[in-house]
């Protein structure tokens, strides 16, 4: 084990800004990418749902 | 009201016409005839103030149009060879924006109605670049439906239109004339438009 306590872990031997800056931005990128894709998927679902609704209405008439 | 006095047009070293005189009253239609290259477009561009006559003067309500500027533009609509539509904007946006820039803002409903009348319903959301030639022309002409101007200057408005659309435009012009509007137009196609007074202007 390299770290005796949490603050030592966060300070990264004085390089905290650089190390955590890298990891946080990477995390943001990855989460952002996943969110963007699922967002795209959800709007598609909504659109298809809409088409589906219209079809149903037409069928009912 | 709209008067041309001794108009002449020179293009390059060629004199296209001279001593053209006419006077157009409310409800009057003027049809400009002539073979290709006889100067019809040149005349119409003068009438709407886009170019200046080599000689003579154009008057609106007895004042020279170049002294009126904005006031004349507020009562006049010109539709020329170019369609004046943006390829990247949708049909709806084109109509609303061009009307707004021409001085009369219209609501989405009004625009929708006009587009339906002119036969573009279902195409409101398409960008103009994917439309057919005749449909583009219709977008340009749709402005006539929503503008509140009295002088319409139309350079071959019927080009690329199908038979149904020609009928539609014919009806539109007749209605405009009936309401006291004025129309100056050219066309190579035969068309009969009923009007209180019709002037035929023949260019050589």
């Amino acid at each position, binding site marked *: *084990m*390299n*770290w005796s306590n949490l603050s030592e*872990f966060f300070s*990264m*031997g*004085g*390089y905290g*800004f*650089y*190390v955590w*800056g*890298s*990891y946080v*931005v*990477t995390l943001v*990128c*990855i989460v952002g*990418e*996943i969110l963007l*894709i699922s967002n*795209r*998927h959800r709007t*598609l*679902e909504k*659109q*298809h749902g809409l*088409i*589906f609704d219209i079809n149903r209405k037409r069928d009912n008439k | 009201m709209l008067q041309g006095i001794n108009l002449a047009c020179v293009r390059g070293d060629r004199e296209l016409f001279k001593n053209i005189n006419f006077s157009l009253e409310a409800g009057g239609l003027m049809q400009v005839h002539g073979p290709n290259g006889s100067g019809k477009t040149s005349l119409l561009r003068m009438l709407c103030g886009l170019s200046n006559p080599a000689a003579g003067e154009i008057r609106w309500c007895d004042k020279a149009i170049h002294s009126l500027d904005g006031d004349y533009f507020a009562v006049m609509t010109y539709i020329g060879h170019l369609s004046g539509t943006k390829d990247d904007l949708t049909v709806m946006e084109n109509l609303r924006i061009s009307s707004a820039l021409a001085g009369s803002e219209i609501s989405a409903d009004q625009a929708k109605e006009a587009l339906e009348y002119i036969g573009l319903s279902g195409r409101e959301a398409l960008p103009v670049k994917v439309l057919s030639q005749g449909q583009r022309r219709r977008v340009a002409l749709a402005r006539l439906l929503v503008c509140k101007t009295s002088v319409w200057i139309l350079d071959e408005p019927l080009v690329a239109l199908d038979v149904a659309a020609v009928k539609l435009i014919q009806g539109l012009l007749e209605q405009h004339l009936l309401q006291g509007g004025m129309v100056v137009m050219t066309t190579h196609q035969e068309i009969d438009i009923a009007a209180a007074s019709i002037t035929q202007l023949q260019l050589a």
Partner: protein
Amino acid sequence: MSINWFKYSSPASFYSLAGKITPIFAFAAVILLVAGLYIGFFVAPTDFQQGEAYRIIFIHVPAAWMSMFLYVVMAFWAGIGLAFNTRLSSMFATAIAPTGAMFTFIALWTGALWGKPMWGTWWVWDARLTSELILLFLYIGFMSLQAAIDDPRRADKAGAIIALVGVVNIPIIYFSVQWWNTLHQGASVSVNQAPSMATTMLVGMLVMVFASWMYSIAVILKRTRVIILERESHTAWVAELQKKGTVQ
């Protein structure tokens, strides 16, 4: 066991296949990521030269490798799509580009953050750095071109041409930049002075590389599915899916 691969080259059947296998890769990615980070932060020792700053390596190197590799894969699929007119391969290429660009960006970003403590500057015009930057431009060019074309099939073909031209250029760019730089003995520091790595560091890094692999595969499959849906929304099989309510 023989799999009928041709069956899966149609978007419809690929759609359902991808739906089934994506979670597997996603799961593998998470496991590997956790393992890699654990090794990276808790097992691997402090570097005696660089201190703790070297721990950036666990994302920097995987990202840099993925960025280069994905471009080649993208160009490959785009080329297949252009040559054989297979829709699915072109969709793959389109789906790979954003992920590749993201890894390129991460490599640049982490590199810059590493450079400041190590070299005293965010950026130098060194061969590797410069060619990574140009790689980002190539990705962005590919994506902008595709975004600017409305018709997806035209976009596929146009994108394929630029991707192929780009892939020819990448080695040329890499070597020219390297040569340009060595002729001019300007930069006094270079990434080549990497520390001789401890085994645990190496293991951590490799685990992270595999995690990036799994992540890329999962994300790309998922994005391909979205693209398939977007493009094929008018077709019968999507309508079928809608009826069943299984679009996801």
